[in-house]
């Protein structure tokens, strides 16, 4: 059996030049904390 979760989450925003943008990735967006093939247990964080 398998479980598929599909959800909407913030993409994050690129800081503007006024805010000191220095070419880094999107800030404040969805971030995964897993890897493919990783074993997980109920209650562990998959992302935030």
């Amino acid at each position, binding site marked *: *059996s398998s479980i598929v979760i599909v959800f909407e989450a913030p993409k994050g925003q690129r800081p503007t030049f006024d805010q000191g943008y220095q070419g880094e990735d999107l800030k404040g967006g969805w971030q995964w904390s897993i890897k493919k093939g990783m*074993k997980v*247990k*109920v209650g562990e964080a998959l992302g935030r």
Partner: protein
Amino acid sequence: LREALGKTKIVWKPIPVGLGIGFLGLLQLYKVHQREKAAAEEEDRRSAASGYGDKDERPRKRKRIRPSGPWTVQLMSYLPLKNISRVWGWFNELKIPYYLRVPGFKLYSWIFGVNLSEVAEPDLHVYPNLASFFYRTLKPGARPLSPDPSALLSPADGKVLAFGTIEHGEVEQIKGMTYSLEALLGSSSPTFDGEPEDISASHKQVEKNTSLEEKIKADEEFANINGISYTLPRSHDSKSGATIVDASTKSKSSSIAEVRADLAIAEGKRSWLFFSSPKAPTGLYYVVIYLAPGDYHRFHSPVSWVVKKRRHFAGELYSVSPYLQRTLPGLFTLNERVVLLGQWKHGFFSFTPVGATNVGSIVINFDKELRTNSLLTDTEADRAAEEAAARGEPYCGYSEAVYQQASTVLGGHALRRGEEMGGFQLG
């Protein structure tokens, strides 16, 4: 002859277990066949009564899914997977002799890596069969929840097969093999509103430009005025064809409070309406978790959210093992599955348990009307396909129910993060 009969020694031997199991299996297949035959006859009578007198004039039944793929997959598509699954389920519900339970479950645990120290019931004799052991509960505190309130929690024990973003409405199954979101969840999933058709225009208008608290208040007033649409245990939404059901178990007050608080926090950051906040652009993300036979087979809510709709795709019951996921494109869109659609603080949220041959039954705790891997739902799906064909429309492939509760003003069934939602049962 008399001499032979008198002098021949009679030796009693036990019937081999395999032969016994084979016989019982055949008996069960025969019973299933008889039931299907009876259901088909009933269907014939019903069709004849509805004006399709001649069998040849009737629209054809739902076609069996025949996927493309290597010969192993082709071969599998000709197996009666649902019947096998039902026989397997029946077999696993047979009582195991008392003294064989502990060694049997220990052997199973050793083969499939079950950690017996965390099983809630220490005495394995309590489980009368493999089906009940498979659907075991765990000791309280065995699965602590991540303290991060913004985290998406793992709903089950298992292995992460895939995760990522959904681009152009397509989900990647395994590298290079994709399937569309619409095929997985059904059409128009991101734009549903989960409300019955008879909601007045003024109510909709209230919903558009108000805060969450005002919306809840408006919902309460609306529920008082139009109580029937919220309190009827079962009715039909003629617009979408969805069945409106009362969630069998009412949301816990703590769940409602937590979901409300969660949505209220989000309310300050984004609009209640979907895809409408200019401040926080959102994307669609997905994650697939595979549960191995030895894993704990109940699933829990990954976040605090409100389930508004349920879609049941009768589908087939192919195995969902990693091998088949590599070789059978769009496997999840072929299999029987229950799609739960709803909303969380960031917007759209869906949770889809996908059945397999050995774990055909999907249980949703708050939906007692749901029947999966059942002859009845198959017949209903066939009937729906026939009706769609009679109207000259394509069959959407699923039956839909909208959750409504008299006490819940969130417009669905509220689930707290970590709350048990249901599980997979054998067969």
